[in-house]
Every structure is written in structure tokens, then in C-alpha cells.
């Protein structure tokens, strides 16, 4: 079982975890990313390249399933305008082995947070906004990986 959704809507974590628990493994690992507030941030605006996002996230999920003995993988990534405290990303993995579930979950979220084709714009309470710049090392890795 593997499923990827790139969507504007929030999601139901309990339902996602229940589906992973039903995969028959001994363990389910998950990571939920949340928009962090602070420094006057009022919203995070996420843009993406739909056709490429789906293809690339699908490929990285296949990579994870080849590297670890997984029974289930679920990735949900939101786009659009999100307020601090809102969920932005969810990765859940199910395996017979807790190490496989935990490591693959970390692998997927690391990839998503650094290499997934998203662009972020921060909006602040003073009305200003700025595009988040890619960290040099993330950009270098993304190019190295994908060329």
C-alpha cells in the first residue's frame, strides 16, 4: 500500500494512521510537519509544480519501498496558504520492523523538506512578504540527485 496526495485541504491523521496500522506490520511511524509561527509570520504560501511534484514524490516513495521492507507508505503534502499551527505535511510508514518504519519515515520527510519541488513565500503581520531562499546545500543536493 502506497499513496501520495498533494492537496490544499487538511487531512485526518487518525484515519491515515488507522489505515497504516491495518497493514499487518508491527509498527507505524509518522511525522507531521506544522507551520511554525514567530517573527510576525501570518501565513506560509506554498506553490508547487503539480505534474512534477506527483512524479517525484511517487519516485521517492518507490525508492523507500525498495530500500526498506515496508507494508505501507502514505505521503500527504499541502499547498496554498497555511497559517501557523496548520499541518503542512504528513509521512506515515508501516513495517514489521520498527527500524524500517522509523528510518524510512525520516528518509521521506528529509527528502520532502529539502528537495520536493515546492516554493514557499512567507507573509508577515506588517504586510510584507518574502520568498524563502533555498539553502545552498539543499540546492546542490537536489541538482546532484536529480540530474
Amino acid at each position, binding site marked *: 500500500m502506497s499513496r501520495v496526495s498533494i492537496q490544499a485541504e487538511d487531512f485526518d491523521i487518525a484515519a491515515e494512521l488507522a489505515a497504516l496500522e491495518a497493514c499487518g506490520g508491527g509498527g507505524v511511524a509518522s511525522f507531521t510537519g506544522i507551520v511554525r509561527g514567530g517573527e510576525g509570520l501570518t501565513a506560509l504560501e506554498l506553490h508547487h*509544480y503539480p505534474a512534477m511534484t506527483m512524479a517525484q514524490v511517487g519516485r521517492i516513495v518507490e525508492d523507500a519501498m525498495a530500500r526498506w521492507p515496508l507494508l505501507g507508505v502514505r505521503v500527504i503534502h499541502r499547498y496554498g496558504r497555511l497559517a501557523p499551527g496548520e499541518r503542512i505535511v504528513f509521512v506515515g510508514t508501516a513495517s514489521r520492523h520498527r527500524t524500517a518504519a522509523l528510518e524510512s519515515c525520516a528518509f521521506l520527510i528529509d527528502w520532502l*523538506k*529539502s528537495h520536493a519541488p515546492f516554493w514557499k513565500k512567507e507573509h508577515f503581520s506588517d504586510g510584507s512578504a518574502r520568498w524563502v531562499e533555498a539553502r545552498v546545500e539543499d540546492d546542490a543536493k537536489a541538482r546532484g540527485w536529480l540530474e
Partner: protein
Amino acid sequence: MAALTILYFAWVREAIGRDEEKVERPETGTSIAELIAKLATRGDGYAQALGDPEKLRAALDQKFVPLDTIIGEAKELAIFPPVTGG
């Protein structure tokens, strides 16, 4: 000659003021960098968005490629800043 669809993302899109356009397919052997240089001469928004290719990344038919890649028979070119992840 078939058209080439160009997609713009993030601040490239904002500066140009459109998310997508169709252009005439450039002549055989043209690289992405060469097309970008030509588009940058179109005027204000284009110059601002495309004037510094160091800041740009590209994808041909949904695959990341270096800017010196020849466009060839690709149907879709995307131009954008480095991705910042989710």
C-alpha cells in the same frame, strides 16, 4: 512548428506576471540558457525574472535538467528558482 509551453513558478512567475505561455519552438540546437537569454530581452518583468540565470533552475517535461540542456523535442519547459522543499 509545434509550440513549446513554458511554465513559471514562484518569484519568476510574479515578476513575469503569468504562470504559463506558449512560444514558438526555438530552432534546433537551442539550449534552455539561450532561450532564457532571449526571453529576458522582452521587457521589464522578463528582464527582472530572467536576467540572472545563476538564480534559475529548469525542468524539461517535468524533469530537472541543467540550463545548458538542448530543448530538442520537449513539450514543456519550466523555469523557477531553486526549490525550497515542503
